[in-house]
Structure formats: C-alpha cells, structure tokens
C-alpha cells in the first residue's frame, strides 16, 4: 500500500530485503486486513443470530408487525453494487493493457454506482419506518447494514483516491498496485453486501 515500487538505493539506504514469498507484501497485507474485516462482520452476524435465533424471546414473525424491510429497493441497490464490481474489474484490466480512457471511465462509473448505493441506503434509513430504538430487530438491522455502509464509505474514499491519482497521470501497465488493492477491497465490500442482503432482507 504505502511502500513505493522503486525504492531509491542511495548510499545510505537499507539493503534490499529478501523476497521470501511469491505473494506480494501489499496484496498479502490487504488480504489479511480483509480477513480481519470478515471477523468484524462475523461479530455483527453473531449478534444478529443471537437476537433472532438463540434468543428465547425472539419474535415469531421477522420483522415483527407492523414493520417491513424494503426488500425490493435493497434488491435494486444490490444489483447496482454488483455491477460496480464488474466496472471495477474493467478499470483494472484497462490499466493493465495501458488503456487510460477505459481505466478512468471504469473508475468513475464504479465510484458513481457506489455513491448511488450509499445514497439509496441513507434514503432507505429515512423512510424505513422504524428507528434504532424500536427493538432488537432494528438494532441488528441497522447494525449490519450500517457496518456495511461504513465500509462502502471507506471503499468510496479509496476509489476517489485512485481517480485523483489516475486523472493526474499515475498508474501504468507496470505500476497498478494502487488500483489493484482498492479493487480487492471493493470486491470484498461487494461480496459482503450479498451476504448481508441475503441474511437481513431475504432470510
């Protein structure tokens, strides 16, 4: 992430570290971070199933009357987010082939779709008809979707970073780690949403 690809070796510099694994350090770091993030989501899923399944006083109907989850709107939102994963992939493939226009178009499209997802979620929160204080079902609903929304926000700032640097002429077929790593994160956010959507809205 942070290390620059070509470290200058002047007289005072450190010796070149031995690369003892085929895995790139930055990619491995991102994957481990995502592993940790999956566990964070795991704790939220644990809370979700404690409240809904293990809890002896769990309501028979989910969500309890008179509340409803906006399954259709969230479904459209899911489609938007899944599509943005493909445009992200397209952007990465473009910069690998040196096609700057496709790369930037892909990045901007991904960002716009991510932003649309997040906006829809905020609007959904405002119109969902219940608030955080309306019982445990609302706690776990806002907990899981809110945690995911925070991750979308982080992903969006990473994408914005790629767009800023990309529009200033950075990245090339040789140097595209700065695109690849936010891309991995974005795919993670995307796949995690599918799990969250299936659990919270469909199950």
């Amino acid at each position, binding site marked *: *992430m*942070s*290390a*620059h690809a070509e*470290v*200058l070796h002047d007289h*005072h*510099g*450190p*010796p*070149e*570290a*031995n*690369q*003892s*694994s085929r*895995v*790139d*350090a930055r990619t*491995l*770091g991102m994957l*481990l*971070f995502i*592993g*940790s*993030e999956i*566990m*964070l989501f*795991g*704790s*939220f899923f*644990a*809370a979700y199933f*404690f*409240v809904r399944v*293990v*809890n002896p*006083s*769990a*309501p028979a109907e989910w969500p309890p009357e008179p509340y409803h989850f906006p399954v259709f709107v969230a479904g459209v939102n899911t489609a938007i987010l899944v599509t943005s994963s493909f445009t992200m992939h397209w952007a990465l493939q473009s910069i690998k082939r040196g096609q700057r226009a496709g790369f930037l178009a892909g990045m901007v499209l991904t960002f716009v779709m991510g932003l649309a997802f997040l906006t829809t979620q905020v609007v959904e929160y405002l119109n969902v008809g219940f608030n*955080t*204080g309306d*019982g*445990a*079902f*609302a*706690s*776990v609903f*806002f*907990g899981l979707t809110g945690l995911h929304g925070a991750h979308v926000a982080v992903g969006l700032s990473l994408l914005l*970073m790629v767009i*800023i*640097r990309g*529009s*200033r002429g*950075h990245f090339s077929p040789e140097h595209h780690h700065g695109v690849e790593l936010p891309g991995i994160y974005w795919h993670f956010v995307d796949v995690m949403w599918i799990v969250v959507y299936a659990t919270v809205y469909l199950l």
Partner: protein
Amino acid sequence: MTVSHSDTPHAEYPPHFEPPHGSTWKFFFGPGLVRGGWMAGVGFVLGTLLVLALRRWWGWEPYWLTEVILVVGGMVATPIGFLGGIGAFDYWLHYISGRPTRPEDHSGHGARTWRDYFRVNTDHKVIGVQYLVTTFVFFTIGGLMAMFFRAELAQPGLQFVDSQTFNGLVSMHATLMIFLFIIPAFAGLANFAVPLMLGAPDMAFPRLNALSFWLLPIAGVMFLASFIAPGGAFGAGWTGYAPLAEGQPLGQTFFNMGVQWAGASSILTALNFLVTIITMRAPGMTFWRMPLLVWANFTTSLLVVIATPFIAGSQFFVMFDRIMHTSFFTPEGGGYVLGYQHIFWFYSHPAVYIMMLPGFGIVSEVISSMSRKPIFGYRLMALSLMGILVLGFSVWAHHMFVAGMADWLRVPMMITTLLIAIPTGIKVFSWTATLWRGRIHLNTPMLFALGFLTMFVIGGLSGIYLGSVPIDIAASDTYFIVAHIHYVLFGGSVFTIFAGIYYWFPKMTGRMYNERLGKWHFWLTFVSFNATFFPMHYVGLRGMPRRVFDYDSAFGDLNFVISIASFVLGASFIVFVYNMITSWANGPIADANPWRAHTLEWQVSSPPPIFNFDEIPQVVGGPYEYGVPGARHAVMSPAKEAEEVHA
C-alpha cells in the same frame, strides 16, 4: 569481540531533517507534538460541529447531547486530528493528493537524538523502544492503582474510597495491564527483535508500524481520562459485561472507545508482523529455521487478526445500546443478554494466548542460550504453538459455566479447555528438557525465565481446576480466580516481559544493565509476588468474592498480609526502573553478543546499525545449535562484528 559505543552508529546516520524549532512556522506547522496538540483541538471542534449540524438537520432535540459529542468529537475526531498533527498521515495524504511520489529519503527513520523518540518514526527499533517505554509508563500507573485498592482491602469495611471509585480502580487496573501493558509490551519486544531475527532491514510496512504505535497512547489516555468524567471511571470490570455496563455512568463510554483504539493498534501491528514474517525472511530462513520468538509472534499475530475484531464488535454494541438506544443486549427491547459474553469471550479467551504465546517465544530464546543447549523438540515447540492457536478458539464458553448458557455447551468446552494442557505441557516439558544437563548461566534473564516456568506451572494447574465444570461452579468469581489469572499473567507474562527486557537490553541500548540490581529485582519480585497471590487461592476457596470492596472480617488477617506483600511487590519495581534508567544513561558498554547467542540480532553491533544489516545474511542452519560442532545459523557477509564473534 568488538566493543561498540552506543553513540558510534549514530555518527554514520544520514543527515537529518532540521529540528522542528528551527523556525516559528515549523514549530507550529511542522509534523510533531505541537501540531498534534492543536490539531487535536481542531479535530474536536470539527467533530462537535458535525454532530450539531447533523442533529439540527434531522431536527433531533436536544442538539447538544454530551455523550454523543464526546464519542464523535472527543474520541474519534480528536485522536484523528492528533494523528494528523504528529504527521502519521503525511505520506498518505501526499499520495492521495496525486502529486509525484517522493523518493524515500529515510529522514523519518532511526533515532539520532532523544527527540526522535517523540515523533512518528519508521524504524522498527525505535518503535520497539517507544512501545516499551510507553507500556511501562502505563504499567506503573496500573500498578499504583493496584496498591491503592490493596490499601483499601487491607481491612474490611470502607477506608479510603467509595464503592464506585473502588470498582473504577479495579477495572482500570485490569484494563491498563491488559490493553496497555502486556499485549503492547510484547508487540514492542517483537517489533525490536523480529525483523532483526529474520534478517530483514525493517518491517514490511514501516509507516503503518509507526501509526500502530501512536494509536496506543491514545487508547491509554482515553481510559485514564474517564476518571474526570462525571460519575467516575468505568466500573464494570475490564470485561464490561452488558447489561451492567449499559447502566453505568459516562465513564463506560471511554472504555468502549479506548478498546477500539487499542484493538486497531494490535490488529495493524499483527498484520505487519505476518506480512514481514511471510515475505521478508532472509535467504535460507525457512519456517523450520525461524527462532521460536518469531514462531510465537506468527501465531500470536494470527490470533490477533482473527479474534480482536470480536471485542471491537462487542464494545460497539454496548456503545450503540448506550447512545443510540438499540437493544442488542437489553432484554426489554428483545435483545439477547448472554450474546455479549459469547462475543466478548470469543475474543478474550484467545486474548489470554495473545498475552502468553510471545512470552513462550522469549523464554525459549533465553532458556536455550543460557543453558547452552539446542532447544528440546524445536519442531514440536512450534507446532504446539499452532495447536494452542487452533484450540484457543474452541474454549471461550468456559468463562460462562455459571452464566446460564446452554447446558450442552459445558462439557465440550470443558474437554477442549483441558486439551490445551497438552500443547502447553509439551512446551513446559521441552523447556525442562532443554535445561537438563545444560551449562546453566543464572543471570537475570534466565532467573526470570525460570521464575516464569515455575509460576506458570502453578497458574496452569489452577487453570485445569477451573476448567472443570464442578470446581468452576464453586470457585467462580472468588479470589481463586484472581490468584489464577495473576499466576498466569504476572508469574507468566510479566516475568517473560522482564526476561525479554533484560535479555535484549544490551542490544537495544548498547549498554549493560547492572546484574546485581537485576538479581535483587528478581528475588524481591519473586518472593513478594508469591506472598501476594498465593494466599488468594486460600481466601478464594474459603469463599471471598472478587471485585467487592468489602469482605467478611474472617479474611481480615490474610488480606492484611496480602496488602503488605503487594506493597513490597510495588517497591521491587523501583529497583527495576532505577536499574534501567541508570544503566541506559551510563552503564558499561555492552558487547555485540554478550550471551553468545546464535540468532541474527546478536550478530550485528549493539545497538544495531540504522538499517540492521549492511547486506542481508545467508541463513544456513537452525537458530539454537549450541554446542554442536561446526554448526552455524547464518553467514554474515561484511559485518565485521559478526566475523569477530564467530572467530
């Protein structure tokens, strides 16, 4: 052997960027603690304004809600402002702005003066020392609190404090010792030693490493700041059980958020260790040639990365319940109370191995080199660490035998708990077998290692008692538990931290500690430790409950003895601090390899050169081949100190 002066390597350092007080502008706007101070204030104002604006926008009355302002403005925006101020984000902000990447000039690497220890520094050796000094500051504060409530407990009844303050002191003591001392002190020792042991010039992500360190004092200050909150410090114990924690005064929020910063610090460090160990080993350093300290930190880091998010989650839920009126754990809203304990212990049981495995690594280094024998059963030592890692995730509910959880969960959790005695036993027997017929050098690190071995066996045995359901039901929440965890965490972890500090002190400072004072420190600590905590087994089994400010007068005499012993234990720490400070300032110059150890950190000068190695060494054998004719761990190319050591 070469005698290297602690100041000599500094002379070879590349030119430094100017000190921040070169000009007034730089003093206020250059990265450093001054900018950190005012940017923390700016962060607080911005965070507060954000909350007020959002609440106004949605029309939530009242706009000013102290606990929300405190969380967003005080505990999120202020630390971020501080981090930005000291310059932890400078490189990344430059990168994000899209300007051309600056070539690394290593100006933020290494310490030339003491001031360099107070800024964002990317050198793992500096960060290691930063960690250790910071953690010992919090160790001192936590220890003083312990003596304060031991004074209260010297007699039955209330003497000095009220009950809520007592609860606050006990909770703070445990919280500081766990999150601000044991876990990060191990991270500090490993930060210093692991890259050197691997033959790497630094950690994989040096800037991330610097950031992880600076998250730590933030957490510590946040915990301590809860004392000035209305209602006093958090008093629901370091476990912060819900729903008890949800009815607590404001101070509890400091715990909820402080844990997040400490947890982020450990996760980022652990991630850094894992990447370093996997991708930056010297040529020839296979996994089966790694020193056991590296193995220990590899497994510990896996535990941290996997488990720590669960305590983050548990504290988020409690905070949401407190300030957002959710009902994760409140039964009135349909929440599931026991969920907190399950989620909390799913982290906090692995956390006891996070607090123990690095100590196993330190002790393996010390016992092997001080007995002048190869470590017994090297591969099994490494595999048993992995065994503890896997089993550690399957035992959390043994903390909940009396909590009213599902009955069927008890026996499986009891069996897995008792199974952990197998890999732990392998380690204890291997250390003992390493000692067998060794040429034992009874110096201070070795004394602490042996002290660990004996005390940890006692703590492990009482752990086996507590792991079995019937005994646990009787002994739960008594002083027997307090005795057990102090035998494991003090007699275990803290003794290994002392062993590690004394062992690497000459390498860190280039000077030798005072051996006589070191031995005084050990014997004073060892005797007063046992005098303090061994009687707790007895009063616990007699039925004295833990975490209560008052007790039956029948326990009065023993508690008086315990309190006196605990003051001696506190006094023994003064010997250590005096030894460290005077030896660091003007102790005798240390050899590059005073212990004649084989691992790589001892093959470079003391303190090590700024980039550790002139050339990355070639590893050719195991790290503990003491007394094996012709055996070598590594070939150091041009480093002259190493040639002379081996000659």
